[in-house]
Protein backbone atom coordinates (compact mmCIF):
# COMPACT_ATOMS: atom_id res chain seq x y z
CA UNK A 1 0.00 0.00 0.00
CA UNK A 2 1.28 3.43 -0.87
CA UNK A 3 0.76 6.15 1.71
CA UNK A 4 -1.46 9.12 1.05
CA UNK A 5 0.29 12.45 1.53
CA UNK A 6 -1.11 15.77 2.74
CA UNK A 7 0.88 18.94 2.06
CA UNK A 8 -0.12 21.81 4.34
CA UNK A 9 -0.32 25.23 2.71
CA UNK A 10 0.15 28.29 4.90
CA UNK A 11 0.03 31.83 3.57
CA UNK A 12 3.68 32.29 2.60
CA UNK A 13 4.53 28.62 2.02
CA UNK A 14 6.59 28.40 -1.15
CA UNK A 15 7.87 24.82 -1.30
CA UNK A 16 4.38 23.32 -1.11
CA UNK A 17 4.20 22.72 -4.88
CA UNK A 18 7.68 21.16 -4.95
CA UNK A 19 6.66 18.75 -2.19
CA UNK A 20 3.37 18.00 -3.95
CA UNK A 21 5.13 17.41 -7.27
CA UNK A 22 7.65 15.02 -5.76
CA UNK A 23 5.27 12.79 -3.83
CA UNK A 24 2.51 12.78 -6.45
CA UNK A 25 4.52 12.72 -9.69
CA UNK A 26 7.88 11.13 -8.83
CA UNK A 27 6.52 8.64 -6.28
CA UNK A 28 2.96 8.37 -7.64
CA UNK A 29 1.32 8.71 -4.26
CA UNK A 30 -2.12 10.21 -3.75
CA UNK A 31 -1.55 13.73 -2.47
CA UNK A 32 -3.74 16.59 -1.29
CA UNK A 33 -3.00 20.18 -0.45
CA UNK A 34 -4.35 21.05 3.00
CA UNK A 35 -5.21 24.74 3.44
CA UNK A 36 -4.20 26.14 6.83
CA UNK A 37 -7.75 27.25 7.66
CA UNK A 38 -9.13 23.75 7.30
CA UNK A 39 -8.94 21.09 9.95
CA UNK A 40 -9.62 17.96 7.88
CA UNK A 41 -6.42 16.05 7.05
CA UNK A 42 -8.31 14.15 4.31
CA UNK A 43 -7.18 10.75 5.56
CA UNK A 44 -3.52 11.50 4.93
CA UNK A 45 -1.00 8.92 6.12
CA UNK A 46 1.89 11.37 5.99
CA UNK A 47 1.76 15.12 6.57
CA UNK A 48 4.35 17.44 5.06
CA UNK A 49 4.85 20.92 6.48
CA UNK A 50 6.64 22.58 3.57
CA UNK A 51 9.29 25.26 3.43
CA UNK A 52 8.65 28.93 2.86
CA UNK A 53 7.95 31.99 4.95
CA UNK A 54 4.61 31.28 6.59
CA UNK A 55 2.99 34.52 7.75
CA UNK A 56 6.00 36.42 6.45
CA UNK A 57 8.16 35.02 9.26
CA UNK A 58 6.66 37.77 11.44
CA UNK A 59 7.48 37.66 15.15
CA UNK A 60 9.57 34.46 14.83
CA UNK A 61 9.66 31.91 11.99
CA UNK A 62 6.76 29.51 12.39
CA UNK A 63 5.32 31.21 15.48
CA UNK A 64 2.01 32.26 13.91
CA UNK A 65 1.53 29.25 11.63
CA UNK A 66 1.65 27.12 14.74
CA UNK A 67 -1.79 28.48 15.71
CA UNK A 68 -3.44 27.81 12.34
CA UNK A 69 -6.55 25.62 12.61
CA UNK A 70 -4.89 22.83 10.58
CA UNK A 71 -2.11 22.60 13.16
CA UNK A 72 -4.52 21.38 15.85
CA UNK A 73 -5.32 18.45 13.57
CA UNK A 74 -1.63 17.91 12.78
CA UNK A 75 -0.75 17.88 16.49
CA UNK A 76 -3.54 15.39 17.20
CA UNK A 77 -2.39 13.24 14.23
CA UNK A 78 1.23 13.35 15.41
CA UNK A 79 0.27 12.50 18.99
CA UNK A 80 -1.39 9.33 17.67
CA UNK A 81 1.83 8.35 15.90
CA UNK A 82 1.07 9.84 12.48
CA UNK A 83 4.11 10.55 10.32
CA UNK A 84 4.95 14.25 10.01
CA UNK A 85 7.81 15.69 7.95
CA UNK A 86 8.64 19.35 8.47
CA UNK A 87 11.07 20.82 5.96
CA UNK A 88 12.84 24.13 6.63
CA UNK A 89 10.01 26.49 7.66
CA UNK A 90 8.07 23.29 8.43
CA UNK A 91 10.82 22.37 10.91
CA UNK A 92 10.56 25.84 12.47
CA UNK A 93 6.79 25.38 12.82
CA UNK A 94 7.27 21.97 14.49
CA UNK A 95 9.60 23.62 17.03
CA UNK A 96 7.14 26.44 17.74
CA UNK A 97 4.34 23.87 18.09
CA UNK A 98 6.55 22.02 20.59
CA UNK A 99 6.21 18.82 18.59
CA UNK A 100 10.01 18.89 18.54
CA UNK A 101 12.28 20.40 21.23
CA UNK A 102 14.48 23.48 20.78
CA UNK A 103 14.44 26.68 18.75
CA UNK A 104 15.95 28.13 15.59
CA UNK A 105 18.19 31.15 15.87
CA UNK A 106 19.42 33.35 13.06
CA UNK A 107 22.32 31.84 11.14
CA UNK A 108 25.58 32.61 12.89
CA UNK A 109 26.82 34.42 9.78
CA UNK A 110 23.60 36.51 9.72
CA UNK A 111 23.40 35.59 6.05
CA UNK A 112 20.75 33.66 4.21
CA UNK A 113 22.49 30.51 2.98
CA UNK A 114 21.41 28.80 -0.22
CA UNK A 115 23.70 25.96 -1.27
CA UNK A 116 24.12 22.20 -1.45
CA UNK A 117 25.26 20.63 1.81
CA UNK A 118 26.35 17.14 2.77
CA UNK A 119 24.59 15.20 5.50
CA UNK A 120 25.53 12.20 7.57
CA UNK A 121 22.78 9.98 8.95
CA UNK A 122 22.93 9.00 12.62
CA UNK A 123 20.00 6.63 13.00
CA UNK A 124 19.05 4.26 10.19
CA UNK A 125 16.16 2.64 12.01
CA UNK A 126 13.51 5.29 11.50
CA UNK A 127 10.62 5.69 9.10
CA UNK A 128 12.62 8.49 7.47
CA UNK A 129 16.00 6.79 7.05
CA UNK A 130 15.46 3.02 6.62
CA UNK A 131 16.28 3.26 2.91
CA UNK A 132 19.60 5.07 3.43
CA UNK A 133 22.72 2.90 3.23
CA UNK A 134 25.18 2.91 6.13
CA UNK A 135 27.79 5.66 5.74
CA UNK A 136 26.06 7.08 2.68
CA UNK A 137 26.59 10.87 2.68
CA UNK A 138 23.56 12.70 1.29
CA UNK A 139 23.84 15.81 -0.86
CA UNK A 140 20.79 18.00 -0.28
CA UNK A 141 20.29 21.75 -0.71
CA UNK A 142 19.55 24.21 2.08
CA UNK A 143 18.02 27.68 1.79
CA UNK A 144 17.41 29.50 5.05
CA UNK A 145 18.24 32.47 7.22
CA UNK A 146 17.26 30.90 10.52
CA UNK A 147 18.59 27.37 10.72
CA UNK A 148 20.89 27.72 13.69
CA UNK A 149 19.40 24.99 15.87
CA UNK A 150 19.65 25.62 19.59
CA UNK A 151 18.50 23.72 22.68
CA UNK A 152 19.72 23.54 26.26
CA UNK A 153 22.24 20.98 27.42
CA UNK A 154 19.73 18.51 28.88
CA UNK A 155 17.67 18.56 25.69
CA UNK A 156 20.74 17.91 23.53
CA UNK A 157 21.80 15.03 25.80
CA UNK A 158 18.32 13.56 25.56
CA UNK A 159 18.35 13.88 21.76
CA UNK A 160 21.71 12.10 21.63
CA UNK A 161 20.79 9.34 24.07
CA UNK A 162 17.55 8.56 22.22
CA UNK A 163 19.17 8.69 18.77
CA UNK A 164 16.84 11.54 17.81
CA UNK A 165 19.51 13.40 15.84
CA UNK A 166 18.99 12.00 12.34
CA UNK A 167 21.11 14.30 10.19
CA UNK A 168 24.23 16.37 10.73
CA UNK A 169 26.03 18.71 8.32
CA UNK A 170 29.29 17.16 7.21
CA UNK A 171 32.00 17.24 4.56
CA UNK A 172 31.55 15.36 1.30
CA UNK A 173 33.18 12.32 2.87
CA UNK A 174 31.26 12.50 6.12
CA UNK A 175 33.66 14.45 8.32
CA UNK A 176 31.95 16.40 11.09
CA UNK A 177 33.36 19.69 12.24
CA UNK A 178 32.40 23.35 12.39
CA UNK A 179 33.95 24.03 8.99
CA UNK A 180 31.04 22.16 7.41
CA UNK A 181 28.39 23.80 9.55
CA UNK A 182 26.50 26.32 7.38
CA UNK A 183 24.52 28.05 10.12
CA UNK A 184 26.11 27.51 13.53
CA UNK A 185 23.67 24.86 14.74
CA UNK A 186 24.68 22.90 17.84
CA UNK A 187 26.57 19.67 16.99
CA UNK A 188 26.03 20.42 13.27
CA UNK A 189 22.41 19.34 13.70
CA UNK A 190 20.44 19.42 10.43
CA UNK A 191 17.45 17.27 11.39
CA UNK A 192 15.90 15.72 14.50
CA UNK A 193 12.94 13.52 15.37
CA UNK A 194 10.69 13.40 18.40
CA UNK A 195 11.21 10.66 20.98
CA UNK A 196 8.74 8.29 19.30
CA UNK A 197 10.40 8.82 15.91
CA UNK A 198 7.29 9.69 13.91
CA UNK A 199 8.03 13.41 13.50
CA UNK A 200 11.07 14.67 11.57
CA UNK A 201 12.14 18.28 11.26
CA UNK A 202 15.00 19.04 8.88
CA UNK A 203 16.42 22.25 7.43
CA UNK A 204 17.68 20.74 4.13
CA UNK A 205 15.16 20.35 1.31
CA UNK A 206 14.87 16.72 0.15
CA UNK A 207 11.97 17.67 -2.15
CA UNK A 208 14.38 19.80 -4.19
CA UNK A 209 16.55 16.87 -5.14
CA UNK A 210 14.31 14.01 -6.24
CA UNK A 211 13.71 14.63 -9.93
CA UNK A 212 16.70 13.34 -11.96
CA UNK A 213 16.12 16.26 -14.34
CA UNK A 214 17.43 18.53 -11.61
CA UNK A 215 20.70 16.63 -11.44
CA UNK A 216 20.48 15.42 -7.84
CA UNK A 217 18.33 12.67 -6.36
CA UNK A 218 19.47 12.05 -2.79
CA UNK A 219 16.15 13.36 -1.50
CA UNK A 220 14.50 10.21 -2.86
CA UNK A 221 16.23 8.18 -0.14
CA UNK A 222 14.18 9.95 2.51
CA UNK A 223 10.86 9.70 0.64
CA UNK A 224 11.58 6.07 -0.26
CA UNK A 225 12.18 5.34 3.41
CA UNK A 226 8.76 6.76 4.30
CA UNK A 227 7.03 4.87 1.48
CA UNK A 228 8.90 1.65 2.37
CA UNK A 229 7.47 1.83 5.85
CA UNK A 230 3.98 1.43 4.40
CA UNK A 231 4.98 -1.45 2.12
CA UNK A 232 6.30 -3.56 4.96
Amino acid at each position, binding site marked *: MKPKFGVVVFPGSNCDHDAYYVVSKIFNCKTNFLWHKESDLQESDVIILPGGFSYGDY*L*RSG*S*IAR*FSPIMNSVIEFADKGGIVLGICNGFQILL*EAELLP*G*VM*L*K*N*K*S*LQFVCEDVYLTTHNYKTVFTNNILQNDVLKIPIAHGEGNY*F*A*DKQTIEKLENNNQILFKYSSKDGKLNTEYNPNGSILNIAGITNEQGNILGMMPHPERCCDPLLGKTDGTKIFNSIINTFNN
Partner: protein
Amino acid sequence: MYKAKVIVKRKPSILDPQGTAVEKGAENLGLTNIKDTRIGKYIEFSINVKNEEEAKNEVEKYCSKLLANPIMEDFVYQLEEINEA
Protein backbone atom coordinates in the same frame (compact mmCIF):
# COMPACT_ATOMS: atom_id res chain seq x y z
CA MET B 1 -9.71 48.82 29.19
CA TYR B 2 -5.98 48.39 29.72
CA LYS B 3 -2.94 49.21 27.70
CA ALA B 4 0.00 46.79 27.77
CA LYS B 5 3.57 47.55 26.82
CA VAL B 6 5.69 44.45 26.39
CA ILE B 7 9.41 44.05 25.91
CA VAL B 8 10.68 40.69 24.63
CA LYS B 9 14.38 40.06 25.16
CA ARG B 10 16.64 37.19 24.31
CA LYS B 11 17.80 35.30 27.36
CA PRO B 12 21.34 36.23 28.41
CA SER B 13 22.54 32.72 27.48
CA ILE B 14 21.38 33.07 23.86
CA LEU B 15 23.77 34.58 21.34
CA ASP B 16 22.50 37.61 19.51
CA PRO B 17 24.33 37.80 16.18
CA GLN B 18 22.10 40.70 15.13
CA GLY B 19 23.23 42.71 18.15
CA THR B 20 26.84 41.86 17.36
CA ALA B 21 26.43 43.00 13.76
CA VAL B 22 24.76 46.25 14.75
CA GLU B 23 27.55 46.91 17.22
CA LYS B 24 30.02 46.69 14.33
CA GLY B 25 28.08 49.62 12.88
CA ALA B 26 28.59 51.51 16.13
CA GLU B 27 32.33 50.93 15.83
CA ASN B 28 32.22 52.27 12.29
CA LEU B 29 30.44 55.34 13.64
CA GLY B 30 33.37 55.87 15.95
CA LEU B 31 31.40 54.83 19.06
CA THR B 32 34.08 52.74 20.65
CA ASN B 33 32.55 52.71 24.14
CA ILE B 34 29.45 50.76 23.09
CA LYS B 35 29.35 47.17 24.37
CA ASP B 36 26.93 44.27 24.79
CA THR B 37 24.35 45.37 22.18
CA ARG B 38 21.30 43.09 22.37
CA ILE B 39 18.24 43.49 20.18
CA GLY B 40 14.75 42.74 21.44
CA LYS B 41 11.18 43.61 20.53
CA TYR B 42 8.75 46.19 21.85
CA ILE B 43 5.05 45.37 21.46
CA GLU B 44 2.01 47.32 22.65
CA PHE B 45 -1.69 46.55 22.58
CA SER B 46 -4.89 47.25 24.45
CA ILE B 47 -6.99 44.72 26.34
CA ASN B 48 -10.72 45.04 26.64
CA VAL B 49 -11.28 43.71 30.16
CA LYS B 50 -12.69 45.19 33.37
CA ASN B 51 -10.00 44.57 35.97
CA GLU B 52 -6.26 44.34 36.29
CA GLU B 53 -6.26 40.66 37.23
CA GLU B 54 -7.95 39.70 33.95
CA ALA B 55 -5.63 42.00 32.04
CA LYS B 56 -2.58 40.32 33.60
CA ASN B 57 -3.88 36.88 32.71
CA GLU B 58 -4.42 37.89 29.09
CA VAL B 59 -1.01 39.53 28.75
CA GLU B 60 0.82 36.61 30.29
CA LYS B 61 -0.93 34.10 28.07
CA TYR B 62 -0.27 36.22 24.96
CA CYS B 63 3.39 36.66 25.90
CA SER B 64 4.18 33.12 26.95
CA LYS B 65 2.27 31.37 24.14
CA LEU B 66 2.97 33.64 21.20
CA LEU B 67 4.91 36.88 21.62
CA ALA B 68 7.91 35.25 23.30
CA ASN B 69 9.38 31.80 22.95
CA PRO B 70 10.28 30.82 26.54
CA ILE B 71 13.15 28.64 25.32
CA MET B 72 15.11 31.65 24.12
CA GLU B 73 13.29 34.78 25.26
CA ASP B 74 12.14 36.54 28.44
CA PHE B 75 9.43 39.17 28.59
CA VAL B 76 8.55 42.07 30.86
CA TYR B 77 5.43 44.19 30.66
CA GLN B 78 3.71 47.25 32.02
CA LEU B 79 -0.03 47.65 32.33
CA GLU B 80 -1.95 50.87 32.63
CA GLU B 81 -5.66 51.50 32.80
CA ILE B 82 -6.96 53.68 30.00
CA ASN B 83 -10.28 55.51 29.81
CA GLU B 84 -12.53 54.49 26.98
CA ALA B 85 -13.31 57.43 24.76
